[in-house]
C-alpha cells in the first residue's frame, strides 16, 4: 500500500534527478514565455499599460494606507480577514514612486508577477506532468487567456487582470503549480521556492487547496529521507498554519452581514456546489452565446454539458500512459477543491445563480481544469490521434474563449490630475478633504490625509 502511494507521489511530484539541460537555456526560455504571457495579459486590457489606474482596493486600501501609515503598519492588519501580503509588497514598491507613477508600478508589478508565475509551468520542473515543452507553453498561454465572465456586479470583471487587488487569484495558480513541481536538486533553490510559496500562502486565500498535496510531499520526503523536500513541504504547511492562526478562517465569509452556514442545510449547499462545478466546466467549454442558451435551458442542460466535457476527459484518460493518471487526478483535485473552497469561503455566491460568480473566483479552478486537459492530452500516445486531439481542443478553446479575451477598459479617472492635487495638499499640510475617483465608481479614495508617512517626492 505504502509503495503504491509512493509511486503515486512520484508521478505527481516527479523524481529528484537534476535537469540535464543547461539551466541558462531554460532561464532564457522561461523569460521568453513570461514576456509572451505579459504581452497577452496586457493585450486583454491595454489601458493597464497605456493609462494605468488603480482598481478598488489598490486605491482606497493599499495606496492610501501605505501613504498614511507606512508599509509596516499598513501590512500588519487584515483586510477582509486576510493578510494580502503580496498586494502590500506591491503597494510598498508603488509607494517608492512619485504619486503620478504609482498606478503604473501597481499594474506593471501585477502583470509581471502574473506572467512570471504562469510561465513557471514552461520549465522542465513540470515535465513529469506534461512531457511536451510546447504543450506546457500552450497551457501557459491558455491560463493567461482564461475567459473572464461578467458575473456580478458586471462592472467588476475588468479588474481581474493587471491589478494587485486581484493578484491573489493569479498567485493562487502559481501556488497550485508549486504544489506539483519537481523540486530542483540544489538546496538553495528549494529554499527560495519555499520562501516564495510561504509568501504566496499569505497572498491567496486558496492556499489550503494545496495542503493535502503538501502533506503527501512531506510524507514522501520523510520516506525518501529527502530533507529539502521535507523542509519545503513543512514550510508551506507551517505558513498555512500560521496564516490560519492569524486570521482564524483565512477571511472566509468576511464581507457579508448575512450569516450563512453549511451546517444549516448541508444538502442544499452540496447541490449548489455541484451546480457551481457544472457551471464552471460548461463556462470553460462554451462561448458566451451558447453558454447563455445552455444556462437558460436549466441546470440539467448545464450538467449535461459538464458531464460531456468530463466524459471526454475520461475517454482521453483511458488511452494515456501509465504515469499520467496520478497527475491528472491531482489537477482534477485542484479544480474540484478550489471550487469547493471558493464556495465555502464565499457562501453568499453559492446561494446565488452560478452565472453570477465574480470572475476572480473562476481563475484558479479554470487553470486547474485546463491543466487536467493538458495532462490528459500529453499522456496520449504520440501520433496522429494525439496531434488531432491537441489541435481540436485548442480550436475549441479559441472558439469558446476569443469573445471573452479582451475585457472592457476602465473609465478614465484622470489619475495624474488627482496625483498633483494630492501632492499639493500634502505639501501644504491642508486638512481640506480630497476625493479621488477610482474604478469601480463606488471605491473612491476619500480622505482627509494630512501628512504622508513618506517623504514627498518632487515630480
Amino acid at each position, binding site marked *: 500500500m505504502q509503495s503504491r502511494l509512493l509511486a503515486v507521489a512520484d508521478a505527481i511530484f516527479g523524481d529528484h534527478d537534476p535537469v540535464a539541460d543547461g539551466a541558462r537555456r531554460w532561464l532564457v526560455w522561461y523569460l521568453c514565455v513570461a514576456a509572451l504571457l505579459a504581452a497577452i495579459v496586457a493585450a486583454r486590457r491595454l489601458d493597464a499599460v497605456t493609462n494605468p489606474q488603480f482598481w478598488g482596493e489598490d486605491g482606497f486600501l493599499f495606496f492610501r494606507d501605505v501613504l498614511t501609515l507606512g508599509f509596516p503598519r499598513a501590512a500588519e492588519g487584515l483586510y477582509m480577514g486576510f493578510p494580502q501580503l503580496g498586494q502590500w509588497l506591491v503597494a510598498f514598491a508603488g509607494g517608492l514612486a512619485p504619486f503620478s507613477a504609482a498606478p503604473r508600478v501597481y499594474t506593471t508589478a501585477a502583470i509581471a508577477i502574473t506572467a512570471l508565475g504562469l510561465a513557471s509551468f514552461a520549465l522542465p520542473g513540470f515535465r513529469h506532468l506534461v512531457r511536451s515543452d510546447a504543450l506546457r507553453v500552450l497551457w501557459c498561454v491558455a491560463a493567461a487567456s482564461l475567459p473572464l465572465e461578467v458575473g456580478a456586479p458586471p462592472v467588476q470583471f475588468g479588474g481581474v487582470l493587471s491589478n494587485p487587488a486581484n493578484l491573489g487569484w493569479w498567485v493562487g495558480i502559481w501556488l497550485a503549480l508549486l504544489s506539483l513541481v519537481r523540486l530542483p536538486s540544489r538546496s538553495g533553490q528549494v529554499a527560495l521556492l519555499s520562501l516564495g510559496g510561504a509568501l504566496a500562502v499569505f497572498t491567496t486565500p486558496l492556499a489550503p487547496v494545496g495542503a493535502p498535496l503538501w502533506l503527501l510531499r512531506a510524507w514522501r520526503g520523510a520516506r525518501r529521507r529527502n530533507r529539502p523536500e521535507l523542509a519545503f513541504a513543512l514550510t508551506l504547511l507551517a505558513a498555512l498554519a500560521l496564516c490560519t492562526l492569524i486570521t482564524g478562517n483565512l477571511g472566509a465569509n468576511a464581507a457579508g452581514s448575512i450569516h450563512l452556514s453549511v451546517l444549516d442545510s448541508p444538502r442544499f449547499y452540496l447541490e449548489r456546489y455541484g451546480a457551481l462545478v457544472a457551471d464552471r466546466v460548461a463556462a470553460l467549454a462554451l462561448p458566451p452565446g451558447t453558454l447563455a442558451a445552455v444556462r437558460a435551458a436549466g441546470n440539467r442542460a448545464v450538467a449535461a454539458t459538464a458531464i460531456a466535457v468530463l466524459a471526454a476527459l475520461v475517454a482521453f484518460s483511458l488511452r494515456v500512459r501509465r504515469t499520467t493518471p496520478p497527475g491528472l487526478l491531482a489537477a482534477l483535485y485542484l479544480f474540484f477543491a478550489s471550487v469547493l473552497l471558493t464556495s465555502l469561503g464565499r457562501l453568499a455566491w453559492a446561494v446565488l445563480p452560478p452565472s453570477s460568480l465574480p470572475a476572480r473566483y473562476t481563475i484558479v479552478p479554470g487553470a486547474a481544469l485546463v491543466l487536467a486537459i493538458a495532462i490528459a492530452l500529453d499522456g496520449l500516445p504520440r501520433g496522429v490521434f494525439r496531434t488531432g486531439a491537441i489541435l481540436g481542443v485548442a480550436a475549441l478553446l479559441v472558439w469558446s474563449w476569443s469573445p471573452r479575451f479582451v475585457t472592457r477598459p476602465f473609465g478614465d479617472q*484622470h489619475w*495624474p*490630475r*488627482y496625483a*498633483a*492635487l494630492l501632492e*499639493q*495638499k500634502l*505639501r*501644504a*499640510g*491642508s*486638512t*481640506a*478633504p*480630497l*476625493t479621488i*475617483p477610482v474604478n469601480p465608481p463606488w471605491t473612491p479614495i476619500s480622505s482627509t490625509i*494630512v501628512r504622508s508617512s513618506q517623504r514627498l517626492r518632487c515630480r
Partner: protein
Amino acid sequence: MPVSRPVAVLDGDQSFRQTFVSTCDGLDGIVLHLAAPTPSSRGTLDFRLVDERRQQTVASVSVPRSQLLQEAAQPFYFPPVAGSAGVRYSIVLQASQLDPAAPVSVLGAARDPYPDGQAVFPGAAPDLDASFEYSCAPPQTDSRR
C-alpha cells in the same frame, strides 16, 4: 452655494475675484466650481488668497490648465492661515495665457446668494457670486503642528 450659471469666463490673461469672510481659524483649502470642458494644455490658472484688509497674498497655488479637473469641483490647498476667523479675503483666479478656444468658466449663481461677498469680473452683474467652499484645519490638528 448653488451652481446655476457661469459668473465669469476666463481666457487669455483675465482675472476673476470673489470676496468672502472666513468664519473659522486655520483656513487651508478652497474649492471652486469651474467648468473646463474643452481639454487644453496651454497656459495656467493661478489661484491667490488675498487678505483684503492688508492687501496681502496669504496663499497661492498655480495649476497648469492641463491639470484642471474636468467633471469635479476644483480644490486649491494651502497651508493653514492662522487667525483667519472674521477676516475678509479675496479668492483671485488669474488666467495666464489660456487658450481662448478652451476657456475656463467660474460657476456660481445670481441674486446674491452669498451676502458677505461678491464676484468681481469685468461686465459681471453686482449680484453674482461664485460657488465656493472653504475648509479650516481643526484646532487639535493645529496644535500638533
